[in-house]
């Protein structure tokens, strides 16, 4: 069977952006981001176990603007990946697979991510200033 002669589906750029595909791509993107965050967690733990000098290094990095940017980015990524992961688990159980439910679930995930992120940031900042 020659596949070259068959009609090809249009390239990804042709499609209109829609919530379902955007959330799907974001799930993978945040997963990759969080993998990098996992390395930071290990760095933090190893530095804390190693002593003051090593810990100062990780503290300086986390306190810098890039460190703060990464940390705040990772909180969004974590909450999104967690909420959307739960959505995936619901799908795995065979529920909410129709089009309407995927959109309801999708917007629920977006809202839950926003709420959880807001709570974490407010708690973090109020902790920071106190």
């Amino acid at each position: 069977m020659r596949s070259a002669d068959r009609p090809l589906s249009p390239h990804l750029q042709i499609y209109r952006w829609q919530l379902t595909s955007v959330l799907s791509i974001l799930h993978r993107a945040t997963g990759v981001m969080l993998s990098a965050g996992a390395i930071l967690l290990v760095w933090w733990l190893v530095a804390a176990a190693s002593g003051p000098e090593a810990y100062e290094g990780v503290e300086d990095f986390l306190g810098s603007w890039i460190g703060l940017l990464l940390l705040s980015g990772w909180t969004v990524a974590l909450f999104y990946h967690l909420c959307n992961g739960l959505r995936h688990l619901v799908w795995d159980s065979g529920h909410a697979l129709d089009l309407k439910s995927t959109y309801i679930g999708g917007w629920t995930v977006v809202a839950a991510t926003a709420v959880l992120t807001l709570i974490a940031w407010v708690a973090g900042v109020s902790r920071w200033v106190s």
Partner: protein
Amino acid sequence: MRSPLGRAIGLGSAKEGVEHWWAQRMTAIALVPLSLWFVSAVIGLIGADLETVQNWVSQPLAAILLVLLLIAMFYHVSLGLQVVIEDYVHTELVKLGLVGATRLLCFGFAVAGIFAVLSMALGGSS
């Protein structure tokens, strides 16, 4: 001429494909409470000095949960990145190399993290 069955034999999961899928779900479920606990604990540690952090890690509950988090997290990362690599890398040797390297790195980072937690919780030499 081959029957559809003949073409499929030997190409399936050989009854092992479900293991990856299942492990990813199990680690995902474990990570829900573990990561929520971790985030709230870390927010509580903002601005803390090294000694406070070490004391926090040394608590039995925190140490146990951190070790569980590290195991579930790096297992989940390894499985997830494997799927991403398999989706985009189609040269067999490169794919194998990347998946293997990812797995080894995840194992190494998990061991490093667990060792750090245990040395603070049990040793207290630093």
